[in-house]
């Protein structure tokens, strides 16, 4: 009893770039990208909150676009370039957005934080100086139960004030 009986043979080789590094993994085509990142690549900074694309905790960037990694089959990620929260800090130096989150109290329990930061990064990439309404819209797919959002808005606005250059 209890022998892991994982049928293989149906696993596919999937190649992708993750945080700048080329990676090749073997996964079932319908394995969620979220699980690939967390379990195959051990990048557990990407979180699962709802598993149905509502909460945004699993947000990552795929080819520059913000996506919910819980809604992406591994096969559809083949050949793409992925950025996760682990890819932001550079040589142990925090990304300015991470720093702004710390300074403004934008991270409380921290579980929505990785997805929220990537949503904010995506927003600032598309709209470098967003209005409050644009910040609200840009983060509307990322639920936070702790902060009531305003300290997060403040962190995003702070970065837009300061410019994003590291």
């Amino acid at each position, binding site marked *: *009893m*209890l*022998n*892991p*009986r*994982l049928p293989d043979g149906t696993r596919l080789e999937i190649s992708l770039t993750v945080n700048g590094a080329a990676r090749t993994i073997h996964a079932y085509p319908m394995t969620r990208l979220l699980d690939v990142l*967390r*379990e195959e690549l051990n*990048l*557990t*900074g*990407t*979180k699962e*909150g*709802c*598993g*149905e694309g*509502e*909460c945004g905790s699993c947000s990552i960037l795929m080819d520059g676009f913000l996506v919910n990694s819980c809604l992406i089959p591994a096969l559809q990620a083949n050949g793409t370039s992925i950025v*996760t*929260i*682990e890819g*932001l*800090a550079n040589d142990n130096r*925090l990304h300015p957005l*991470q*720093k702004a*989150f*710390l*300074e*403004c*109290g934008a*991270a*409380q*329990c*921290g*579980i*929505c*934080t*990785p997805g929220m*930061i990537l949503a904010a990064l995506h927003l600032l990439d598309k709209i470098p100086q967003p209005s*409050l309404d644009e910040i*609200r*819209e840009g983060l*509307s*797919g*990322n*639920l*936070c*139960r*702790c*902060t*009531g*959002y*305003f*300290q997060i*808005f*403040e962190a995003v*606005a*702070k970065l837009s004030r300061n410019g994003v250059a590291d």
Partner: protein
Amino acid sequence: MRFCAYCEGVKLTESEETIIGTSVPRKEGRDKVTGAARYVDDIRLPGMLYGATVRSKIARGKIKRISFSPEIDWNEYVIATAKDVPGKNCIALILDDQPCLVDGVINHPEEPVVLIAHPDKHALAKAVEGVVIESDPLPAIYSMEGSEKQSEIIWGTDNIFKSFLIEKGDVDRVWAEADFIVEGEYFTGAQEHLYIENNGMIAVFDSVAGVTVWGSLQCPFYVHKALMALCGLPEEKIRVVQLETGGAFGGKEEYPSMIAGHASILAMKSGRPVKIVYDRLEDMVATTKRHPSRTRHRTALRKDGKILGGEIDFTIDGGAYATLSSVVLSRGTIHAGGPYLWPSVRIRSKAVATNTPPHGAFRGFGAPQSLFAMERHMDRIAKIVGLSPVEIRRRNFLQPGQTTTTEQVIREPINLSDLLDKSLAHASYKAKKENFARENKTSSIKKGMGIAAFLHGAGFTGSGERYLDSVVGMEGTADGSVRILVSSTEFGQGTNTVLCQIAAEALGIPYESVTIAQADTTIVPNSGPTVASRTAMIVGNLVRSAAIGLKQTLQLDGTLKKTFKPAEFGAACRKYVAEKGLLRSLARYNSPEGVYWDDVTYKGEAYAAYAWAVYVAEVSVDLTTYAAKVENFVALQEIGKVLHPVLAEGQIIGGIAQAIGLALYEKVLWQNGRMLNGQMTNYIMPASCDLPPIRVVFEEIGNPHGAYGAKGIGELPMDGPAPAILNAIVDALGVPFDSIPLLPEDILEAITRRVQSRQQITSPQESPC
């Protein structure tokens, strides 16, 4: 652009100045923003199995037979039922009435009956479906009214978990003297915590070391106590470790004991590590929610609006088992009179049983329910007496020297009228009321202003803190830094940061020189549960005492001079540890002098301190969609000393956001005792586009019982928003609303009903709002 008043305060550099009152960086913040923080689902152990729970599905009945689908190879699975419980089959808490696994009788539709585990987590869902529980259904009860009728006795002898009676003065005499008698009935619904991290636990069993669990939780020693009973193991053979916890709000106070129990049973049976992590649906439907409530007020008033006395009847729905209902009821009962002087009052309350999953701890813990009723009732009183909502409150506010409903004397120099005036000024209340009265006549968007004044007691109720007997430890370490030892947990609110601030301040050393140990029951003493807004105030004070003790040890020993520089403290620690070994100080809770509480009569000092607040909501209702929207919000509160402005503001805004959800969005739909909308797509919490600008204002009187004058603040912001918002909607529409959540469908229905009743009555009668 500035959205928060206190955000500029964070100092990322080492501070030479006072540490208390400044916004130092969150201790575990860096790990949280880089994704390095490890939550339970981020941990995998070698050989680990994944566990799942097979639940009862029916609300009440007797199990006849459990069968296993022949389509599944059950040899691959570990299976556990009630007969596999090594110790006592219960979740030990206050009463031991809730089984860990159903043994015979089912009492709600999400009760755990069978546990299964498998090395491949994807092999679980189908297997859960493959376990068939056959049972004979029994009649079930789904409402408080049904429970009160006692047509079926589903718990104890009368379906009542607990009841309280508070009596002050002689309420039976006030009715004859009254110029007005005002009655009202108010309802609040269940609310899901919706922490973004679902519940989860990992258990490991070793025949020598015993059971260890790691997980997402608020109260390590609650889990510890439950596992001792369940596993039949002595204290030293149970170890509970809190991992980073992704939100809790009370939702991880008692239920983690259940999941830890399940994981432990499977680990003991299989001999392998077992992880159980709920998915969102399971977490929403099976774990606790805020207690639904019904409050009835009957109040006697003089014509000048002064309260002569009244009766308050407060009932909460506890669900199928006692769990924490008695203490939730207690807090709700004590807060039921609000921040007002009641010369005479009789408060009766009870928690009743229904066949739904047990309701549990949720930020505010009964107070948001009874205060919602009180504050809606004040507006109803104002209308009938013919005073403004402002004036009726002003005339009845508690003042220093007066007593609360439990006859606790207000000793601090609180001036509620002053708080009220300030919050009205911040909200431009008067000008807006006048504008809205004019604009509403022609607009299809009706606007209104609403107030709520309230208080929240910090720490355990009555003698609770004395029974808890909390202990805090502190160590000087070989590298010269200091480590705090507490079972108080971090789940976003800032425990780690604030306790380290207090220690650093007390020792006169930099914040960066203080760390806090992981909450591991083999390392930390029991400083009590992380609940009841008690951590900063009560545990914080013990941290301060422990720090002073540590310093004295070094000074008495001669290792440290009377006055010293931070570097000298570090050197003294290093020297002491090198020469003498362990450098540790413990502090134990002492109840303040002269504090009196009677558990039987419910009289005396219910809380060591109260935080006070006046909130003002500005609301619009769009008569095209009947949607109410909070346009602006002012939250003014007196919370003793603000230890960390950014964290404090974050607690207030976050609490208000949850309370706006409670008021206008979050509705649990029930069918036969089961939640129907257990998904984030159909249980609606406020998102980034739904919240108004929130102006947070702190007043600081101080508190002799709290660390550096702090009072508890975590729960306070949950109490006021819902009544303030409903009062504003009533102001906007002139239609009374006494039930939350208040959805657009409810507003439409009330307006339609009012139009219909107007058409029936030739001379329209104003119903009192």
